[in-house]
């Protein structure tokens, strides 16, 4: 059995990512209370997108995965955009 050295090297990158995520969480909650008018929702969603990207790239190791996995990770999103786009073509143009 591998001797159980203090696996420090395992913790460095994840803790950094974790701290970034917590900061972004604080940022998004804080920004929600600032009166940005029409920009409130876009900023909230943008920060959420950055957080999800961080989780995807680092925690789900997309940065070291094969092209196939990266393709699979965005396939769902691409189809979601198709669904939202064409449904919007109905709702936004209703008389």
């Amino acid at each position, binding site marked *: 059995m591998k001797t159980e050295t203090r696996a420090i090297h395992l913790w460095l990158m994840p803790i950094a990512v974790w701290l970034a995520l917590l900061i972004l969480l604080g940022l998004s909650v804080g920004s929600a209370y600032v009166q940005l008018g029409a920009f409130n929702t876009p900023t909230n969603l943008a920060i959420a997108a950055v957080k999800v990207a961080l989780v995807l790239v680092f925690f789900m190791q997309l940065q070291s995965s094969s092209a*196939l996995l990266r393709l699979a990770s965005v396939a769902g999103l691409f189809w979601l955009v198709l*669904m939202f786009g*064409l*449904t919007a*073509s*109905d709702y936004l*143009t209703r008389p």
Partner: protein
Amino acid sequence: MTDILLDSLPPAKPANYLEEGHTLASWLTTTDHKRIGILYALSITAFFFIGGIAIGIVRLELITPHGALLSDDQYNRLFTLHGIVMVWFFLVPSIPTTFGNFLLPLMIGAREVAFPRLNLFSWYLFVAGAVFTVYSVIAGGVDTGWTFYTPFSTLFSNSHVIAAAAGVFVAGFSSIATGVNFITTTHMLRAPGMTWFRLPLMVWALYTTSIVMVLATPVLAMSLLLIMAERFLGVPIFNPNNGGDPLLFQHLFWFYSHPAVYIMVLPAMGVVSEIFTCFARRRVFGYSAMVYALLGIGVVGFLVWGHHMFVAGQSPYANLVFSFLSFMVAVPSAIKVFNWTATLYRGQISFEAPMLYAMSFLGLFTIGGLTGLFLASVPIDIHVTDTYFVVAHFHFIMVGGTVSAYFAGLHFWWPKITGRMYHESWARFSAVTTFVGFMVTFMPQFIMGYAGMPRRYHVYPEVFQIYHVISSAGALILSVAYLFPLFYLPWSLRHGDRVGKNPWGATGLEWTTPSPPPKDNFPRIPRVDVEPYAYHPVGQSADTEGREPHRPQREDA
């Protein structure tokens, strides 16, 4: 059932997959993709006849315009039962889970699918979904139609909607599990030398279908979950009195249900491509065009769902957008029909049962596809939607197309699955009777559909009685034609003569294994060095009359 299959093979040969275990437990806990394919085949055959009996009673009822046999409610529950059972418990799983499970590893030179245990779990998910649905039928049935439109299904229907929706919800995850399994298998378990453009078109069809299954089914699961939440918890998601929009459900439902019709027809195209090439002894005409057509149908199929809602209150702009996209999705289908026809050019065509079924697929799918153009043009669709014209259109594609291809595949791979040859003349008779029965049943529906006969009608104006009587007569012929294989196929298990590796002289890898194949398919993983359907040298045509293919796909065959 299993002891009939036992035949005294000389012990020297490696035991085939049927002899790996004879107890029921060996079948119910198997992770052998071939056995799971057979488990699926038995379950969907049972459902095929449940759905068939339901519509048999409906067709009997429709002989008289004033509905003497059933009450309104019974009629509504029967046609809903026919819809739900046929769509989700026969057509969607029909080819991928039976021939897909059995043949995908064999065709790409693998020993097993990527996730064997997940494969068995997906069959149990299918059975769990079936239990829910059968409960909802026995407990009184559901009367919303297979489309579950709100607010009728959420507020006004007092039938077993939640049980039926739960059944389809669970069966949906069986579909997703199969899809994930096949995509991973095709990507990661191909034999050395089996590059993407050496894959048989059946594998391409299963791969595209799996992508559509994985990406479309979850949206159905969510739409049914929202209906169950609204009915069970009372949360007003689609309740119009509360500002809810009934069209939102239709968008979510049809986002799945149109790709679902491509889940049903794409595998059928794969089966037919295998059969046309084998019985015409010809290389497929335009292999890459056929592959891109499959992928095109799979992707563009996701963009056209709005043509189900032209009259539902959708904005005129969206009507035109979806109408245009629906015309575009018809182009790849047309290409495939022309390529199949061109494959016959300069071949050595023989007309065994699989070929007859495949040719009836070609004819009926062509008519079904062309009537799709009527429905894609907005003014005609406004007149004919929700009439028997639409019923005829989708039955031409689903029954004329997918079911014919299912039977074609069943006869084509029967020797490989069971090691026995079916009785040829019975099978040809059954193929021809199916075609005749089908035409008599569904051709009149086009005529009365355009005249204005609405669908899902228990009583109808007397003017249409003549068409209904002809259609019901056709349905009688069709139901008899579907019973024939139920007799002569099991009969062939004992009395059919034994076949060798390659009774049809086909080029696929599955035809280089003994029939029935051993549990691990290939003693040594084969090396592939030639493209599929090498029935004659490139640039030549089918000169030799013999059965031997020019080059099976396997280097050391």
